[in-house]
């Protein structure tokens, strides 16, 4: 019988030395966390720098502002001519567009959040008021979170326009917070599709003879101004606001005069309107 083998002591385990290394997940997670922090910082900056929405004017104060901008003397408009406005009006062809009262129709489509629409409503109101009378206009301002935030303006959402020369039809698609407001009819949408190929707003169609989209001046001209301050600035023909707004109004007026066969003569026969009409072709 062989002797049982002596119990061997266990072989020493090899020395194991922990090597400290960064776990593989740390770097990507740290990168994501850093980027997330930056995005949060951007949101905080945005929140702090977003100006509060101005309170719309009362009905009486609104009427005063509208009365002020629609009673400018013809000489004030004449003195500005096209001013600093960018003539965006293009000649278009199509079946003449007639409004609900049988007059040539001026069709507008925009939205209350849109700063370019906000800018363009001032000259639209001034120009159209030379052919008729608005009622139901309300003050509002463009989106607080868009470019050119809180641009002071009016809204056509509840406005009516009466005229013996021209019909005005408007669609404000959303409010200043981009909630749905009004929808174009299929016929109106067809006009937009046909003539507003870029899809920009505001879009204005003058009886299917002329059309434009976008704003004729940059809304920063109105930045930080109250409705009353804008109205006051129009009394000075050399002010940036007068050059932009009245210049745009004259361009719009000239296009409407083309629709109405230069009626009324008191509006359409002015030298500046006639000069612009020649350029419109």
């Amino acid at each position, binding site marked *: 019988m062989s002797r049982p083998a002596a119990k061997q002591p266990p072989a020493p385990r*090899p020395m*194991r030395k922990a090597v400290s290394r*960064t*776990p593989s997940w740390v770097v*990507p997670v740290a990168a994501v966390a850093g980027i997330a922090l930056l995005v949060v910082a951007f949101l905080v900056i945005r929140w702090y*720098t977003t100006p509060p929405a101005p309170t719309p004017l009362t009905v009486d104060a609104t009427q005063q502002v509208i009365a002020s901008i629609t009673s400018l003397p013809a000489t004030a408009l004449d003195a500005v001519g096209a001013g600093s406005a960018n003539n965006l009006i293009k000649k278009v062809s199509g079946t003449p567009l007639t409004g609900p009262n049988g007059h040539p129709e001026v069709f507008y489509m925009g939205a209350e959040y849109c700063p370019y629409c906000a800018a363009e409503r001032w000259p639209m109101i001034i120009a159209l008021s030379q052919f008729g009378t608005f009622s139901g206009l309300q003050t509002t301002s463009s989106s607080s*979170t*868009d470019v050119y935030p809180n641009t002071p303006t009016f809204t056509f959402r509840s406005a009516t326009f009466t005229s013996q020369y021209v019909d005005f039809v408007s669609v404000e698609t959303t409010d200043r917070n981009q909630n749905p407001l009004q929808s174009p009819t299929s016929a109106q949408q067809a006009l937009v599709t046909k003539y507003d190929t870029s899809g920009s707003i505001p879009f204005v169609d003058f009886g299917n003879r002329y059309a434009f989209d976008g704003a004729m001046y940059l809304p920063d001209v109105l930045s930080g101004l109250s409705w009353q301050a804008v109205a006051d600035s129009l009394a000075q023909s050399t002010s940036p606001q007068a050059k932009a707004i009245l210049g745009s109004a004259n361009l719009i007026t000239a296009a409407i005069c083309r629709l109405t066969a230069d009626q009324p003569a008191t509006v359409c026969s002015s030298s500046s309107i006639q000069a612009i009409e020649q350029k419109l072709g």
Partner: protein
Amino acid sequence: MRLQALALAAGLAGLGISIYLTVVHYSTIPLACPANAVINCEQVVTSPYGVIGGSVIPTSAAGIAWFAVSALLAAGLLAGRTQLARAQLGWAAIGIVTVLGLVYVEIVRLGAVCIWCSAAHALVLLIFLIALPRGKGNRVTS
């Protein structure tokens, strides 16, 4: 290797998005994108930041170039050219810095988010994360 395959896929997906946005910019095709108080692709891509330095070249054209190079780098690494790892990291770093600038513009300047742009930004982030050097994890040596 699997991560580089993912980087290659992300590069190609980003290339597709960038090409789509560039084609829309130069055509009359409407941009497929919902519009609400936060998401508004039209507002972002038609803003002054939607083009490079006031030119007529859309920002998405830079995206085409970036994603194309990213895809090539990932393909090279997949083929075993490990010396491209640093180039991928540098290129991805340029991309992520640019994305942070664009996100700043969207959130702070414009207050609107373009979902197509955000998808491209997410792909840049993914490629950046793949390109980052990694530790080997805790290990035990004898």
